[in-house]
């Protein structure tokens, strides 16, 4: 009687609205929400303005009442990792935001400063900023307006200290959700992927399914926990705790469409300024997870930040697998049938 079978159109990859990979225009409507459901929301984490303060980590833990843990995820434990200023280590059941710190350096030749009339000097920027009259402070200046850090010359070395706040990607094609046998993991009306604590039975199927290694079981509890994008706050029109705390708006929350547009603009601005290595991660809807609800602007290869370079939804090959299974099953059935047939003979 179950509706989920290898015969489902979705699992054959033929149902436009119900696929396991590729772009999905309305991931929320696709999951059965009425047409007037809210727009899909997400995070755009612009690591180029992250100051590594970890306010996101604390604001998340305060709101979601998560336990203290060490870099291994051990509850009520402390530990110095030695990985620069990162002592959180990784995302896990007790850490739903994780700020990575990457120290890089290289030798440079310092250019001689140009000395000349005002305006020609190094360090002088054209008078492009508006005169100080007294406009209202923008309610929320976007980082798209903000400039970039890049390499900072430090004496004869160029040092770059990359900081990036990682989080659950709230994938368009979320393998954790697809493999969840209890319906604990579900797609919310905001298009986000959330674990329902009252349903989860701790089977743990979702843990290996996640291509980013985000979702994790709490050791003393067995159930899995991860970022909910503050689902409860969203229902009341609030921002997620991390985004509302972030001092420099490195973490931006909003409608995914708007965030994507802002990210594209930001990337273009950085590239125009010659910022090396700037790229978007999780923005591409044709990538292995159909694009992420939480995506990033990075300044180096994803691996540098501990992110998989080419994540693929682990259920992508499920239809093919089911087809093989189906063929196998048919063959078995055929053999059994032939056996009977043979017996009849």
């Amino acid at each position, binding site marked *: 009687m179950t509706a989920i079978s290898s015969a489902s159109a979705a699992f054959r990859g033929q149902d436009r609205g119900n696929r396991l990979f590729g772009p999905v225009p309305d991931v929320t409507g696709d999951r059965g929400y009425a047409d007037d459901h809210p727009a899909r929301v997400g995070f755009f984490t612009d690591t180029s*303005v992250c*100051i*590594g*303060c*970890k*306010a996101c980590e*604390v604001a998340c*833990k305060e709101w979601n009442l998560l*336990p*203290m843990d060490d870099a291994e995820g051990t509850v009520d434990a*402390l*530990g*110095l990792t*030695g990985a*620069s*200023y990162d*002592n959180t280590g990784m995302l896990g059941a007790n850490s739903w935001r994780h700020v990575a710190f990457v*120290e890089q350096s290289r030798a440079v030749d*310092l*250019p*001689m*400063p*140009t*000395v000349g009339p*005002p305006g020609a*000097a*190094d*360090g*002088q*920027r*054209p*008078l*492009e*900023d*508006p*005169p*100080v*009259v*007294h*406009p*209202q*402070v923008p*309610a929320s*200046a976007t980082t798209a*307006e*903000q*400039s970039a*850090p890049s390499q*900072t*010359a*430090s*004496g*004869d*070395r160029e*040092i*770059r*200290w990359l*900081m990036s706040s990682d989080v659950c990607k709230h994938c368009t094609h979320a393998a954790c959700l697809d493999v969840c046998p209890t319906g604990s993991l579900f797609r919310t009306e905001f298009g986000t992927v959330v674990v329902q604590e009252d349903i989860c039975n701790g089977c743990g199927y979702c843990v290996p399914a996640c291509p980013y290694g985000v979702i994790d079981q709490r050791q003393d509890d067995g159930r899995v926990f991860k970022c909910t994008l503050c689902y409860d706050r969203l229902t009341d029109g609030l921002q997620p705790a991390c985004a509302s705390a972030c*001092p*420099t708006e490195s973490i931006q929350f909003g409608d995914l469409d708007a965030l994507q547009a802002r990210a594209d603009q930001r990337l273009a601005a950085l590239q125009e300024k010659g910022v090396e290595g700037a790229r978007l991660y999780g923005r591409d809807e044709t990538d292995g997870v159909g694009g992420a609800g939480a995506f990033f602007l990075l300044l180096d290869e994803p691996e540098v930040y501990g992110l998989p370079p080419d994540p693929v939804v682990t259920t992508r090959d499920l239809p093919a697998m089911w087809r093989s299974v189906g063929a196998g099953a048919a063959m078995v059935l055929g053999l059994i049938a032939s056996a009977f047939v043979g017996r009849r003979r």
Partner: protein
Amino acid sequence: MAEAHPVGFQWVMEAKARGATVIHVDPRFTRTSALADLHVPLRAGSDIAFLGGLINYVLQHEKEFREYVVAYTNAAAILREDFQDTEDLDGLFSGYDPEKGQYDETTWQYEGVEVTAAAGQRQSPKPGASGASVGAESGEDSDAEEHEQGASEQSGSGGPPVGGKPRRDETLQHPRCVFQVLKRHYARYTPEMVHEVCGVEPQLFLKVAEALTSNSGRERTSAFVYSVGWTHHTVGVQYIRAASVLQALLGNMGRPGGGILALRGHASIQGSTDIPTLYNILPGYIPMPSAREDASLDDFVAEAAGSVGYWGNMKKYAVSLLKAWWGEAAQPGNDFCFDYLPRLTGDHSSYQTVAQQIQGTVPGYFLVGENPAVGHANAKMARLGLANLEWLVVRDLQLIESATFWANAPEIETGELATEEIGTEVFFLPAAAHVEKDGSFTNTQRLLQWHSQAVEPPGDCRSDLWFYFHLGRMIREKLAGSTDPRDRPVLDLTWDYPTHGPVDEPSAHGVLREISGTGPDGTAVDGYTALQDDGSTSCGCWIYSGVFADEVNQANRKKPHTEQDLVAAEWGWAWPMNRRILYNRASADPDGKPWSERKKYVYWDEDAGRWSGPDVPDFQATKRPDHVPPEGAEAEDALGGTDPFIMQGDGKAWLFVPAGLADGPMPTHYEPAESPVPNPLYSRQANPSRKELRGAWNRANPAMSDAFPFVVTTYRLTEHHTAGGMSRTLEYLAELQPEFFCEVSPQLAAERGLEHLGWATLVSTRSAIEARVLVTERMRPLRVAGREVHQIGLPYHWGRNGITTGDSANDLLGVVMDPNVHIQESKVATCDIRPGRRPRGPALVDFVEGYRRRAGVETGLLGRNGRAPIEERS
């Protein structure tokens, strides 16, 4: 700034987005450096050489904002003929007394004009036209406890009064005009010298100089932002002075986008100075009276009375304060109870008190939200002080190390103290948190912001307002009926604050109203200009006067910024008079016109006949820019229309300080008290006026000692707060920085065999501590004076209690102080570092004593219960 003030840093990011160049000058590459355009690593303790280099660059390349400098600074003032510079005297200014280690300021004066130190700065030399030196006066001084007071704080929020207008040369050519004197003083601070002293490559230095000067002037302004580490030097005040000189030369003061912004580290540390719990000042920077000179109220205000600028009204402020404290008892006939004020006889600042505690002469001590057992430089000295009290009251949220020292101080482990021998009686009283009480904090930009009580404090937790009100009430009840005249100041005190709620909490609104002041009819005054010296007005802190204007708690104004302009004048209340940029008359030219449209702020509106703009003018609102004060005018009336710096005795920004500083009229590079290298500029190694305090509990590492070859600097991490009482005790913060560590360069690690994540032992003449090692390229050795200098970074948050524990960085540091404000040099010292953990128990004492012997330093072994005499003070 990103490290210690992350939310404030959002504005730096916005400025950067609008085209600002962000330069970070710091020994370490920090989270701030990561977002800056340029990081300039320099040797800790060499900032005056760096800033002096910039001053020299400005003067040599004529990059000063000439019109501003001529009109608004004392550049044109002509100095006395007998002034001699450090360039003439190899690191000393004229007037130095080597016996006392102090200066006589007489020769620093303007020619023919008497500039006196502010009222209350009585133990600094009091020069006059006669040239009378302080020597004779000091001869009377036989009190063994006598020390010079903190001088610059004694001058209040402005400079010392000036007795008249100095002779000026507005062409700035006169060889003895301040401008030329300054130019000669800094002539040797070349890019090459900066390289030699600071370890900053000339190309990098020139980049900074270019960026700064090309972004200053009529159309543009630059700001200096420092965290108060700048004050943690034996030349701390002169650090700030050097930035002031530079900013005044560049015309960056009193203008939007300019200034020198002190990022203070505690919620109301500004308020704690304005309404001081400091020994040498009364509310509003009125000095505490001194035993020697302040026999009467008129003596007390004599020097201020008749002088130029707002300090000329000091009697009004002082009388109104005395009325606020002693009410009806304060009458003209009894000098408004001026005799009730206790008198100072010298330096009674914190470290002096600790040294006295170790002698057993200070029986009682209150620690109120402060943890000196971790947070004081030479924290061991602080703990020894605690162990030699009779009684101690600790008020805090958590059981901090200063409350539990008798059980778990490191000295118990080493055997230097024993629990059973410590006679200190300890009362730990739990405190209310910020959400459990009403009150105002004054933030780092002088903004008073009210926080409202949300819940009742749990259990025995009480606000400090509750504690002091009820303690005072109980003492008054116990003393009631006393005929002892000594008890009159207590019994006559106005102490009738209304209380409310289940625990009889006194009204914080009522206290703020008393601070703001009331007029003859008992209603709240609008501001300090309403205060009188006849006893008809009352005001607890004149600079806060007006915070309760119109009977409204102005600090509690919370109009959303989205409904206001950029100045947001209706959010909170800034002293004085809700002015957001100080000295903002300087944002207009001498004629009162904006210097430029881009930098328009406060300007003269001819039609309206007043100063106008988005901010409250920091000037008499209707005083014309061409106003010339009449002969004999006093106080603010003696300021002309082009004198923007209204708290200064002459209305000008001072490039040269003719009176009021203990260690020189111009900033000069001296090496830190503990330095591995000689001073390349002068044979004077360190600040000759620095304050020492020596005993077995506070030894000094000798300069250029082979035993202590490395520079160490201390700092905060974003994830923790100061001595850790409010962060090491919280799970979500403890887990983020879970262990005490030191940061070292790969080169130092290789040289000393230190392993990443291994242990290191750091040693000084005070103690030895252990820390985990982080090897990082963010720390880098510098080439200084022909050799490689290694710097070690130490966050200072750790102690024995809390969720994350570790040795205290402050145990390593000694106490040696700035002579003006008596703040310790905790941002730079020397040490040794070696791999492995430190010795345990009594072996630690022997280990450190061995280092002292090798360095040729006196013994650090202590007597019974940690006692040892004070050997030397200066």
